[in-house]
């Protein structure tokens, strides 16, 4: 097991292991195993599903449900081919390990993309075996039998047998090597609006998340963590804490470095969460915080701005010869943009439950990359991965927070000192202060154009506090990928060059929803707009002139990773957004519009935002309306897709307007929702989501709704005469309502 990982590699891996290969390997094993079962209660043709005698169908979903809707969309794929009512399906989290390495990895908006074929094949395989079993019973050929609504029907006699009545026989059938999948035009479930699978449980309070885990004998812990990364415990006086009713004991542990940077901690263990949280306040701790001295975001901003003007540390020539061109002079412009560290702040604060007993370990909680976590826990405990049992749960939001394992390692460090399972509960302050932040970033862009105003040279210097550096300090190459800014840059410009520089900074950081695309699309789509406005061209037409008529092209990132980008699909989402915001209609007084588009290359999806604002004062505005458009290929769950686009927009709007993490002397300043800004109900603008119909193979959506919101909003502000170049807008005195 690798203990440090390139995210892209992971995502490639997960979509691969979710592929057809799995079915070939796993299916026959399962089928035989259940075929010989004496009880004849169920039929389990693969690790993806099980049909019971009572006609219920259990679909096992390996991807983690974190709000993105996999527990709704993936079972739909099975139902479509199995020919059963979606209501007869019960969704269960696939037991960890049942589907092999990488199967549970959840990220990069890859779930539907990776499982579109496997889940449908699983349904079709089961259906084929059920039909074969029924045909034998009726002593007829399979061609006269069809499956519909949970039954196999004999089309000659009109007789029918429910799936439940066939489980015993079907389990004895040969597993077909190949199955026929439906044509798109025959889809009955895919593409039809569905309610969320666990809607009723949510509305009756029955749904259980990681924080709701309760195991026999469990104790609760709240941890006081060293406020600076790499700091140490000097002393602790726990005498007052131990007096608080319910407190069991106080534990200490040392911090660890890369990849997870678990802080040194003092933990209060108690019989309930409240006692633990309360007693933690009574600890008197002295930390060695010297490592944090001088670690300030105010300084980082200056360092990044200075570094931006020098040569990039890593050069990524895209095409032509922009690398050596010094962009200056009349037909050119240069601009810099920046954005701060931001937190995940999932509404369910981080928590995790662990037990270590007799050389074995059991874990409970939400994990987006459980294989990685298991590897790290095995290393921490010096045990075999196979001695670790993982119980995955639903999560109250993920946004990438649960791709990381710091919280799990921390729980394990406590569990190994206890005889009981322990649930570590993070309060909101912990959740924000000890998050794994989206890197602060800075960009310098330059462009040069010809007499007709066509851009001939384009340069983009991306600077971040590298994620790779914090996870693998000795890594040589830090520019994992530049999401939109390098080979996958969508505009037709003959000379393009991208460069990357890391600026070291001592705070933990990691992947936050939208990752590099959110980071790069804001400057990129702001800058192209700036050029258009400088040339007095319509920003929509200017973009379209660099997209329309351009043939699909291949972005080759390395020898085994390439993606195809279709500029016409990009133009499609852009034009739709423009139409729906009324781009071509004259705007009333003080009304301004902005637009932006992007291709979320790795999710095979195109999206745009158009924003209409009303200016109320020099830096005061009202967002009148937001339009979000997407083309992510064939749509599985249209309402779920819209919900993702609405949610992505809101998440991005928080970041555009007010989310920012400040660090002073290595310590995070923000400590809750009072000072870490997230969007609230009264700030929610009117929003419309429009989907471009497509039969292209399905892409992802969970992250696709974020990147273009900030540039579209800033482009609207620029149209009003005031170009913002750094986020969040609050930082530069903007206010909104």
């Amino acid at each position, binding site marked *: 097991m690798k203990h440090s990982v390139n995210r892209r590699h992971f995502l490639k891996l997960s979509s691969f292991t979710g592929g057809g290969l799995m079915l070939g390997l796993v299916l026959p094993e399962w089928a035989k195993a259940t075929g010989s079962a004496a009880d004849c209660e169920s039929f389990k043709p693969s690790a993806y599903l099980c049909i019971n005698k009572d006609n219920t169908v259990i679909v096992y979903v390996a991807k983690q*449900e974190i*709000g993105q809707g996999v527990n709704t969309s993936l079972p739909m794929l099975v139902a479509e081919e199995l020919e059963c009512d979606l209501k007869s399906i019960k969704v269960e989290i696939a037991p960890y390990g049942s589907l092999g390495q990488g199967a549970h990895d959840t990220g990069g908006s890859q779930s539907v993309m990776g499982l579109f074929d496997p889940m449908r094949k699983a349904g079709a395989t089961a259906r084929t075996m059920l039909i074969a079993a029924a045909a034998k019973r009726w002593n007829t050929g399979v061609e006269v039998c069809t499956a519909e609504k949970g039954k196999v029907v004999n089309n000659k006699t009109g007789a029918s047998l429910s799936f439940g009545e066939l489980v015993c026989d079907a389990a004895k059938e040969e597993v077909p090597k190949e199955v026929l999948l439906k044509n798109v035009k025959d889809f009955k479930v895919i593409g039809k609006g569905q309610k969320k699978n666990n809607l009723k449980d949510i509305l*009756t309070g029955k749904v259980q998340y990681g924080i709701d885990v309760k195991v026999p004998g469990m104790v609760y812990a709240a941890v006081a963590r060293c406020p600076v990364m790499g700091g140490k415990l000097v002393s602790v006086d726990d005498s007052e804490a131990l007096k608080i009713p319910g407190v069991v004991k106080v534990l200490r542990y040392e911090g660890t470095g890369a990849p997870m940077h678990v802080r040194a901690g003092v933990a209060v263990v108690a019989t309930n969460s409240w006692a633990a949280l309360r007693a933690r306040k009574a600890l008197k701790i002295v930390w060695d915080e010297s490592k944090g001295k001088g670690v300030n975001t105010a300084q980082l901003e200056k360092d990044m701005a200075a570094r931006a003007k020098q040569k990039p540390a890593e050069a990524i020539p895209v095409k032509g010869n922009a690398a050596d061109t010094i962009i200056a002079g009349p037909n050119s412009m240069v601009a810099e943009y920046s954005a701060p560290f931001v937190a995940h702040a*999932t*509404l369910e604060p981080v928590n995790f439950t662990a037990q270590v007993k007799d050389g074995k370990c059991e874990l409970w909680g939400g994990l987006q990359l459980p294989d990685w976590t298991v590897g790290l826990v095995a290393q921490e405990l010096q045990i075999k991965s196979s001695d670790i049992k993982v119980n995955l749960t639903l999560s109250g939001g993920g946004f990438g927070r649960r791709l990381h394992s710091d919280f799990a390692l921390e729980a394990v460090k406590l569990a190994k000192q206890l005889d009981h399972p322990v649930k570590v509960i993070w309060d909101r302050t912990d959740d924000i202060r000890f998050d794994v932040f989206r890197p602060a970033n800075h960009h310098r862009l330059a462009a040069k154009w010809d007499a007709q105003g066509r851009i001939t040279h384009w340069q983009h210097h991306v600077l971040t506090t590298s994620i790779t550096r914090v996870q693998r300090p000795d890594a040589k190459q830090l520019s994992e990928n530049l999401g939109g800014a390098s080979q996958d840059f969508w505009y037709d410009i003959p000379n393009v060059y991208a460069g990357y520089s890391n600026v070291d900074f001592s705070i933990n950081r990691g992947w936050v929803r939208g990752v590099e695309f959110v980071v790069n699309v804001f400057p990129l789509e702001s800058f192209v707009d700036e050029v258009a406005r400088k040339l007095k061209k319509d920003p929509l037409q200017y973009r379209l002139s660099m997209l329309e008529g351009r043939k699909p092209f291949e972005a080759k990132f390395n020898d085994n990773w390439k993606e195809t980008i279709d500029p016409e699909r990009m133009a499609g989402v852009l034009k739709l957004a423009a139409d729906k915001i009324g781009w071509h209609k004259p705007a009333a007084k003080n009304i301004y519009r902005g637009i932006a588009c992007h291709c979320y290359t790795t999710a095979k999806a195109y999206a745009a935002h158009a924003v209409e604002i009303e200016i109320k004062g020099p830096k005061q505005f009202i967002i009148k309306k937001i339009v979000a458009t997407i083309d992510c290929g064939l749509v599985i769950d249209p309402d779920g897709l819209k919900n993702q686009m609405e949610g992505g927009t809101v998440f991005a709007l928080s970041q555009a307007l007010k989310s920012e993490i400040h660090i002073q002397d290595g310590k995070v300043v923000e400590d809750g929702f009072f000072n870490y800004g997230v969007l609230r109900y009264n700030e929610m603008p009117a929003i419309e989501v429009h989907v471009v119909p497509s039969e292209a193979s399905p892409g992802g959506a969970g992250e696709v709704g974020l990147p273009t919101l900030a540039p579209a909003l800033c482009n609207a502000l620029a149209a009003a005469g005031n170009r913002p170049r750094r986020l969040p807008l609050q930082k530069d005195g903007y206010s909104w309502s």
Partner: protein
Amino acid sequence: MPKHQLNINEQVFTVEAEDDMPLLWVLRDVLNMTGTKYGCGVASCGACTVLLNETAVRSCATTIKSCAGAKITTIEGLSDALLHPVQQAWEEVNVPQCGYCQAGQVMSVAGMLKRNKQPSKETIEAVMSQVICRCGTYDRIRRAIDIAVAKVNNP
């Protein structure tokens, strides 16, 4: 430790706990009623909203002692069959994403409509701005509130 009698969802429970233990943790850790969620513990997110004598309160900032003699309703007590108009509206609009904030959202609206069957836009904003949804389902919540208001007025 002091004993407390709590009337929750029309059932009486006797709980031994410190007087100042927040109702939230009594529900979650002592009574194992986990439908009420923890999001901040300091009345800044609304995830823990329950009804105390039909008024929406933050259970993280409500001590067990102050619940004496009161009627407490949690999300579990609304209606198992989704008969409550707010649940129905939420179902109709298919509001949730991760679902974690939704108990707090639903209970806040239920409390608001108990007091005022025709809340103004300003009232709705004042009440609902206290309840965070990080998944960003606000537009759906807005639509669902309109439906719930209609249902309450024309049952």
